[in-house]
């Protein structure tokens, strides 16, 4: 008799983990569940330690997401994703013919999935490439995907603590020696980051440099007018005063 197939289960929520284990024991009693992981890191360790044939992975787990675990072990074992609700993911799974289960796990659905698994495993026909393909697709859509890398938050020292300011709360940045003044609608803060670094780290569509020493949040511009000297002057929403655009940075406004 061939050695039984091995599987590991991973879900951060204990009731769900137990439920899946119970269901599997009922429908596929010969399956050897060698490990139950409570987070992504444990899951990866279990896969590397036990070399299972199948890994049932919850998608949202602390430590390391189910996606990340799958990315690193798609070549080692067959992956079955488990998700509560995710339109995009489900669509992607369907398209790539990747196995997945919806929470709460229904016995009939589980039985069908198990049948497929048994077929693939006996014939050794499962294909890691489909997992990689689906992960690429999901990378673009799921919130866990790496963001564009632009700054979304600025940490500013505020008395005894560190305040977190979302970039869309910020009206403009003004250079002050090696520091930068961060201006919101009502307050000003001083941060150590120089204007140059900010230029590189902020979304250029959202923040426009209008002067060697000034970056403005484009959404806060109320009006652009021309001064007597011909330079552009910006009036801002929610804040009194104006900002002048220096000659070298005029181009953006010329097209308006």
């Amino acid at each position, binding site marked *: 008799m061939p050695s039984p197939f091995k599987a590991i289960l991973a879900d951060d929520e204990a009731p*769900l983990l137990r439920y899946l284990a119970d269901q599997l024991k009922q429908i596929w009693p010969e399956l050897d569940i060698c490990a139950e992981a409570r987070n992504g890191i444990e899951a990866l360790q279990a896969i590397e330690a036990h070399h299972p044939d199948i890994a049932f992975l919850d998608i949202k787990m602390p430590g390391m997401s189910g996606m990340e675990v799958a990315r690193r072990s798609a070549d080692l074992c067959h992956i079955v994703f488990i998700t509560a609700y995710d339109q995009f993911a489900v669509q992607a799974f369907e398209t790539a013919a990747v196995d997945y289960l919806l929470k709460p796990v229904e016995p009939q659905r589980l039985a069908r999935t198990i049948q497929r698994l048994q077929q693939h495993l006996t014939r050794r026909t499962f294909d890691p490439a489909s997992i990689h393909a689906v992960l690429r697709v999901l990378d673009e859509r799921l919130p866990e995907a*790496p963001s564009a890398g632009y700054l979304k938050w600025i940490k500013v020292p505020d008395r005894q603590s560190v305040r977190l300011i979302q970039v869309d709360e910020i009206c403009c940045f003004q250079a002050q020696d090696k520091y930068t003044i961060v201006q919101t609608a009502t307050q000003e803060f001083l941060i150590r980051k120089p204007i140059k670094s900010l230029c590189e780290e902020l979304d250029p569509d959202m923040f426009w440099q209008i002067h060697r020493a000034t970056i403005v949040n484009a959404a806060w511009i109320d009006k652009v007018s021309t001064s007597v000297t011909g330079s552009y002057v910006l009036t801002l929403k929610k804040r009194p005063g104006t900002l002048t655009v220096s000659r070298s940075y005029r181009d953006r406004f010329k097209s308006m």
Partner: protein
Amino acid sequence: MSPTHFEKSSKNLIGRAIQSSYNYKGISLKDLGLTAVFNCVLAGFLTFLLRDGTYWNYLIVTQCIGLSICVFCESGLWLFKPQSPWRMVLTVAAAILFGGLLGAVIGSLLTGIELATFVEQKIFTLRILVLCLVFGGIASFYFMAQDKITQTRQQLQEERIQRLNSEKLAVEARLKMLQAQIEPHFLFNTLSNILSLLDTEAVKGKAMLRDLTSYLRAALAETRTGQTTLGSEMALIHAYLNIFKIRMGERLQVQTDIDEALQAIPFSPMLIQPLVENAIIHGLDEEIHGGIIHIRAERENDILRITVADTGQGFKPGPAKGMGLANIRDRLEALYGGRGRLILTENQPTGIKAVIEVPYAKPL
């Protein structure tokens, strides 16, 4: 030719010229046409009344002077685009003067009648000019007023559109609130948990089902009334936290500090819940060992301060963690103006501390 016809035709022309060129579109064919038609009639009238010239002559002179003034008026206004009533009157007066003179000269040349006949009657000419200017001025003011009325009407219309827009935004916000409250991920995950507990830990399963029911009922009720009390909002949040306590086990520790006296204070729904949701889903749930969530409500003089602090993973660049916060900020702005704020700071040793400050309102 009597000077009166000059007077009559100019008056009407000025009126029409000013009206049509108020938009400063330049010379309008329609106005020239109307002027020409008016002049034909005027010429006939004058021939009949004065009997000192032929209809043909009257027609030529009328058309020359009239059309010339019309052209000068409209060109002048279009060229100089006067923005104030005085400037406009000045432009029109100059146009009448030059246009009239030019027209008279041309008319005289074409009909053979000497210009002298016009100039002879200097006093009449002066009187005519003054009358033209006065009439021109009155007409200007009238049309300025008309324009102001149109402008005001436009403004009212725009304000109405703005108001409808904000109402629409409010409705959309309520819809979004509704969607957020029945957030599918949360719903299916919780139902999943309930199902899995019913066989093996029925007591826990039933408790979770009760909590889910309370949460949904409270959330839906809030979207309908649009206003709630701090106590009710906290009850909703407690149901929410109970669900997560079962799901996360020891990974979630909850501490709440809400003074009895503050329970009945009126409060806007779904301002605190998103902060709690963020604290758990983006903060504590991301940590392998979870952590603590601490919710406190206190009154400091005129300010009501609500703090939601977690010891979770804290500030990490990446996912759309900020989404709910912009909405909270907008609503605080709309409800309290500058007196409502949302402040986020780093918690010690890890995590985030979110504070909502609003003006203190007496309990209901």
